[in-house]
């Protein structure tokens, strides 16, 4: 089974999903290890500890054609929002955003 890592707010997580990365609270205290399966009780605890985002493993059901389309659309959107000229700092950010978008869709 092919899986990918996605980030969600705890309120968006479906019980049964597994953590792709360890979770810490805002003070840096470790709460849960990578690989932990999230059930309703654990999600309850994360919300109470102020956790606002978790990385989970999700089965990747996309075929090659869908992935290629998503990559092309993402590239076009990034080019559109970064239209026009700007500083070197903006160009560095442009490059970081494009890499991030393409990596997260692969």
């Amino acid at each position, binding site marked *: 089974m092919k899986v990918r890592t996605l980030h969600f707010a705890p*309120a968006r997580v479906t019980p049964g999903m597994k953590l792709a990365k360890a979770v810490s609270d805002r003070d840096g205290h470790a709460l849960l290890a990578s690989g932990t399966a999230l059930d309703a009780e654990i999600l309850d605890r994360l919300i*109470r500890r102020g956790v606002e985002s978790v990385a989970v493993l999700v089965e990747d059901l996309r075929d090659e054609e869908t992935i290629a389309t998503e990559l092309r659309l993402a590239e076009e959107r990034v080019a559109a*929002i970064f239209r026009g000229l*700007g500083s070197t700092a903006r160009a560095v950010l442009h490059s*970081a955003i494009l890499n991030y978008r393409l990596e997260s869709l692969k």
Partner: protein
Amino acid sequence: MSPPGLDELSFHAEALPSLPEVVNYLIRSLKDDGADVDTIANHINSDPAITARLLAAANSVGSGLSSRIHSAKQAFIVLGVDRIVSIILASALIHRFDTGGSAFDARMLWRHSLGVANCARVLAGQTGLDPDVAFTAGLLHDIGQLLMYTASPIDYVQTLELRRDTDISIVSAEQAIFGYDHTQAGRALAQTWKLPIAIEEAICAHHDPDDVGSEMGNLIHVSEVLSHALDLGEQPNNLVPDLSELACANLGLSWPKLTGHFAEIEARYDGLCLALGL
């Protein structure tokens, strides 16, 4: 009739609803470590509309919780003071300054402001600035647009049309029609409302931080650009503004290093929009 001058805006500021007392209190108590849960909860309970929205938002954030949240104090204990203060500020501002049904889409403005506030809170954690002040400054950074719209709705709608039709920045369009822009209008409003100086500087500096030279101004400027770059709010004509080299250098930011936080920022933004019904 020509648009109102910058010096006339303070008269129009009275037409904007004032900040609710509880929001004023929260902005002032952000840096007060002595503020305890009971005192803050009592202040919130004094405003039934805000209490009702807090409970709705808290139960939405905590949709996985085993029991419903029924009181402001319970919300504080369950979700934590920092998080609740952010929710109350955002919820109160969005509802207080709703221009629903008009040509000016305040909902889109708030979605953008929430995006900037969210980026500011994460970036503050990387730069040693106060994350709660950063969040509030992000929420309020475009408040000058609301003041300009209130002062002269026809001229402001014309400004938005000029921006859309010629693909120029909002600041350039405002300068062309009004002779000043929303950073100046926002500063005037911040002074009228007696907001903390760091927030006033952030409002003033968010498009052109180098002239102001304020740490919070630099942070909100970078957060504004990052929020556009991550497409938070997904405005159809979204354009990433120029980014100040000096602001990035003064904050010590490294984009390749910050890339690891982008997915987290997007997930947090989604959670906040969900909580606030935006």
